[in-house]
């Protein structure tokens, strides 16, 4: 029952024709960033969440193909990575979220100062359901739980920017501005 006998990682042999033919999603740069973090942790599994963020920061989502590749890099089964990924209810998978990802807080302090109304109005103005992305791929509007900015309620986190004391009108104007991508 030695480690050499460990049967790991149901899935394709990376050298199989099918896997080679499959288009690689992770760039060498992404893999390098992941590997650069490896010395920080005593095992590879701890790289899972950082790896998801590295891919997500570039692609604005983590498609299933990326999950397979991340798993291969980390020596895990795809199901193990997907398990962790879906827990957070944070990573889009089917298609990229908008270039601006607007988290609209709906927890108690913002709700007391119009957070739910803000979300509802922004969705209506942009023609999306909550968690939806506009057709032009520019904007995603998502409800978020407490953003930790209750001193500026109601607030929105748009990429790296905290938008404070928002109204539906000021928020709409802010969200239409071009914005640096999220870290």
């Amino acid at each position, binding site marked *: 029952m030695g480690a050499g006998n460990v049967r790991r990682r149901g899935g394709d042999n990376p050298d199989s024709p099918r896997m080679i033919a499959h288009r690689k999603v992770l760039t060498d740069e992404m893999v390098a960033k992941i590997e650069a973090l490896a010395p920080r942790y005593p095992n590879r599994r701890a790289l899972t969440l950082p790896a998801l963020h590295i891919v997500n920061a570039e692609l604005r989502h983590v498609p299933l193909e990326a999950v397979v590749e991340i798993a291969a890099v980390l020596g895990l089964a795809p199901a193990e990575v997907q*398990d962790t990924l879906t827990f957070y209810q*944070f990573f889009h998978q089917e298609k990229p979220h908008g270039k601006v990802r607007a988290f609209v807080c709906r927890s108690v302090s913002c709700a*007391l100062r119009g957070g739910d109304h803000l979300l509802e109005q922004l969705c209506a103005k942009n023609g999306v359901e909550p968690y939806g992305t506009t057709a032009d791929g520019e904007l995603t509007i998502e409800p978020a739980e407490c953003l930790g900015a209750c001193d500026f309620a109601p607030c929105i986190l748009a990429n790296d920017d905290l938008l404070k004391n928002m109204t539906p009108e000021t928020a709409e104007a802010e969200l239409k501005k071009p914005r640096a991508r999220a870290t």
Partner: protein
Amino acid sequence: MTPFKPVLLEAVGVPDGHTIASYKSRGGYAPLEATLAGKQPGDVIEMVKSSGLRGRGGAGFPTGLKWTFLPKDHPGPIYLCINADESEPGTFNNRILMEDDPHQVIEGIILSSFATRASTAYLYLRYEYPQSWHRLQGAIDEAYAAGYLGKNIRGTSFSLDIYLHRGAAAYICGEETGLIESLEGKRAWPRIKPPFPAIEGLFRKPTVVNNIETMACVSQIARRGVDWFKSIGVPADPSNPRDPGSYGPKLYCLSGHVEKPGCYEAPLGITARELIDRFGGGVWKGRKAKAVIPGGISMGLMTESELDTPLDFAGPGKVGCLGLGTAAVVVIDDQTSIVDFLHNSARFFAHESCGQCTPCREGTSWSLRILERIKAGKGRLKDLDILLEIGNTMGMMPGSTICGLADGAAWPMKNAIKKFRGEFEDYIKRTNPSGWMVTDPVPALQIVGAH
């Protein structure tokens, strides 16, 4: 009453206050240098124990005592995890500390690592604080450059690395072992205890998990002394040997229906009324408060008549709240429906329940559905009894769940229904005149908009 001169918040408003130069000009890192030059880890533990510092993350456990749970003579590695996953609704003081005075936090981390013999400190930072991320990374880089981090710090045998580890918007990662599981790359399902993290924590090694504000306090205690810390706050009750007191300054977050929401530093023990009126400019729009959350939504509600409760570790418990929690005070005015409040709370906890154990996973989901149904005009009086029963039976305190999220979900339900039952009953009767008295189960409604 003279306003308390901020210590933890002393860098707020100072230009470039987040830089190492600014921090050092305020006396920062001198305590660390003195400690490394002449003290032992045990000395630092004693200092923190004597100060009476209690964890600022929500549980209020005496910090120095927690450090002593680590096994003696362990070959290591020992880990320090800093819980910067601040997600308790109403709470934002950690954000301000990290953005405006990251070095205060970092010096505290280094001192705490020295005390606990931790060789690596992971700072688990919630995703939603990108500005904190940048400030912290910048400060960590400055600390390495100044020789306060890395190998053989200041020529001693003490080495330390601080790594930032970013979360992904899950509240349960603020639970000690949920944080650990998340850091290890798994879903953040809190662990069963025992073993406790001090024995088997991160990567199954001895681990201490401390809050950001706690780290800032460690810096200040090292700089200004134990006596200074103990001169602030509420001393231990001499007739109760089990009471550790409520010492030191506290960052109170004030939000909701007040004129001036903000983070205010005051000695532990000011009352909610003082905080609201003196710091917060009073309830907004000339209204009165209907209910006030004393320490983050998990702590439950105080009524207007309970606002003279001191906000120290012992106070809120005396009026039926769960405790001081994160000292995040949220004011709900008298024109807000308590039903809406409870629905908001239930929605939060149902969304954030990790789903591991049956009573919380199903209890939070069921209570949300009941409140949705009440809000949709199909509530029954019997629902209030069911909600109370759920609230009374789920949680770490009765022993039915693995972690305290369920207790946090339960307390707002228990407080809201017990303290505002009349309002709930009126609402149900008014909105469901034909069905409020029914006691049989009803067919579930299509839930619109619930996440």
